[in-house]
């Protein structure tokens, strides 16, 4: 049998062994897939709730104001209020009292009467202000119509989300970056330590498998896990939270691969320094978690102070997040990812060299 053939069968066997080991490690699966997904659901859910947080309004009987809203203003009204109609004032008031609805309105002659509670002060203020604004706008429009003159001022509502990014667009790349960083670093750290503790590394040294084959198998599995993470994140984001990807999102794949290598090297460093498996995982956590906060995985850095942004530029995760954000949701071209890829690759090379210097086959 040829040396190349045996190398390939060893590579496949090692990759399979590592991948099965990963899938059966409940802790690893939880922290690389389930845990980040919980954040995605949380962030995606919280922010999309905020988008559609309308005021629930019960219209009791006929309310001419609502029917007579002038053009343009009726759109704005529909965006602010969720209108249901009812004929029973007492029932409507009861609903408001219980908090099922925010406000009930009825018309008494020319007067618009709004019933609301003060328990939710912010919503009460919004309701009060908005309703009187609509009354004013309608009055103005009617006066203008009667006098035959155009009003001097007019009102137009425009949503801002189209201009910048909605929440899900922003959080998905950042959380994905964090998830990949975490599982790559933990995986490398824990495997290295685990194999060393269990003497497997020494046993493998005595098999004809080349060290490069062992390394390649470990990398292949980690990259495969990263691509699985990406598929699940993008799939769930698109299906459940309305994530829409922009043109060159595919460029996120090479970004993710290089990012994975970079964080594996950090995991290797942790594994090389630490003496135990737990120590290695803790050390990887120590590197990655603060980095996630400083690299825009959990909140945007756009509004962060200048010094913080300067620090974040030194962190590989920042560049991973940035590159994925640019190509996946900001509509930047594929070329925008080249510099971050180079930075991540550079990090990977340097950190791997340091880890290799510190590495010992044996714990003693």
């Amino acid at each position, binding site marked *: 049998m040829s040396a190349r053939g045996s190398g390939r069968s060893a590579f496949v066997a090692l990759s399979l062994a590592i991948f099965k080991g990963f899938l059966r*490690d409940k802790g690893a699966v939880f922290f690389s897939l389930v845990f980040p997904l919980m954040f995605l659901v949380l962030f995606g859910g919280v922010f999309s709730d905020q988008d559609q947080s309308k005021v629930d309004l019960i219209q009791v009987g006929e309310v001419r104001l609502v029917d007579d809203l002038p053009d343009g203003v009726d759109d704005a009204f529909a965006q602010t209020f969720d209108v249901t109609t009812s004929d029973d004032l007492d029932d409507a008031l009861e609903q408001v009292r219980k908090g099922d609805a925010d406000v009930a309105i009825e018309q008494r002659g020319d007067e618009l009467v709004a019933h609301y509670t003060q328990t939710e002060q912010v919503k009460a203020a919004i309701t009060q202000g908005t309703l009187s604004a609509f009354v004013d706008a309608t009055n103005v429009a009617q006066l203008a119509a009667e006098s035959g003159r155009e009003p001097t001022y007019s009102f137009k509502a425009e949503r801002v989300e189209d201009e910048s990014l909605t929440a899900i667009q922003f959080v998905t790349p950042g959380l994905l970056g964090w998830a990949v960083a975490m599982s790559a670093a933990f995986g490398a750290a824990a495997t290295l330590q685990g194999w060393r503790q*269990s003497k497997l590394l*020494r046993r493998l040294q005595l098999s004809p498998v080349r060290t490069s084959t062992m390394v390649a198998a470990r990398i292949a599995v980690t990259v495969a896990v990263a691509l699985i993470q990406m598929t699940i994140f993008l799939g769930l984001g698109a299906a459940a939270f309305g994530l829409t990807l922009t043109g060159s999102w595919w460029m996120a794949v090479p970004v993710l691969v290089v990012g994975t290598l970079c964080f594996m090297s950090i995991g290797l460093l942790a594994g090389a320094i630490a003496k135990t498996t737990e120590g290695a995982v803790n050390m990887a956590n120590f590197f990655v978690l603060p980095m996630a906060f400083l690299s825009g995985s959990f909140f945007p850095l756009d509004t962060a102070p200048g010094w913080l942004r300067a620090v974040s530029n030194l962190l590989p995760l920042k560049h991973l997040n940035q590159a994925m954000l640019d190509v996946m949701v900001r509509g930047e071209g594929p070329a925008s990812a080249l510099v971050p890829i180079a930075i991540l690759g550079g990090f990977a090379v340097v950190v791997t060299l340091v880890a290799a210097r510190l590495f010992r086959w044996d714990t003693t």
Partner: protein
Amino acid sequence: MPAIVIDDLAKSYGELTAVDGVSLEVGEGEFFGILGPNGAGKTTLLEMVEGLRRPDRGNATVLGLPVWPRNADLLPRVGVQLQASAFFERLTAREQLRTFASLYSVPHTAADEWLERVGLLDKADTRVEDLSGGQGQRLSIACALVHDPEVVFLDEPTAALDPQARRNLWDLLSGLNDSGRTVVLTTHYMDEAEVLCDRVAIMDGGRVLQVDSPAALVRTLDAPARITVAPGAVAVEEARGMVGVDDAHESVDGVVLTTRSPGRVLALLAERDRLDGVRVQAGTLEDVFLDLTGRAYRA
């Protein structure tokens, strides 16, 4: 040509000299034992011969090839069981063995055959973490043999096994060199070495004290035989007075007579019709070991 040649190997860890100039030759097809108490340097010696540790001094060849530095031509011809079992995490026994088979470019059928040979077929789908100590040892031995190596090194294959499991494993081990394979094993157990090994090296303090077949070692020691007589059959005083008896003392099983001419003493006992429940124990490797190391036996 000997399968293994060890020439003046030495290794120190800081101040401590773990192996202190060991030279040995192991013939092809031989079953060779390294016997010694804890810390004697058995594992260190074995790891140097396997090519896992770099010796401070001396060198070793296996199948005519130097073992250091790592020799990719030699490795497929050698099988190794390390003292601590080395498994892929969370794989089942079968997956474990198949993975090792693939590392040596051996078909999976070989892995499944070995699973059967070491009696683990019914544990094929059990994860390695859930195997008992003895099952783990057997799997570990199978992993060392799956590629049918010409030379195998087994470091304490029967450690931590109950006596029954040890004897079961002996059956497996004793057949290993039938096909001309060379086997080197370390052990603390004298009975194990006596049963399995063609020759043993007795090691202590990093040195080899003696090398020979177990029978020859016992012979050269000229160890006395021990004859145990049923309680009450002979008084200690009377026994001491018998011709050929060197010493006698009481024990829980009866009176133990130490003698260098057991035939004569047995004849005397027969004359007096005191043979009921008599037991004769010849000198054992254990006596040799104690004599050589001067240490308490710490199996």
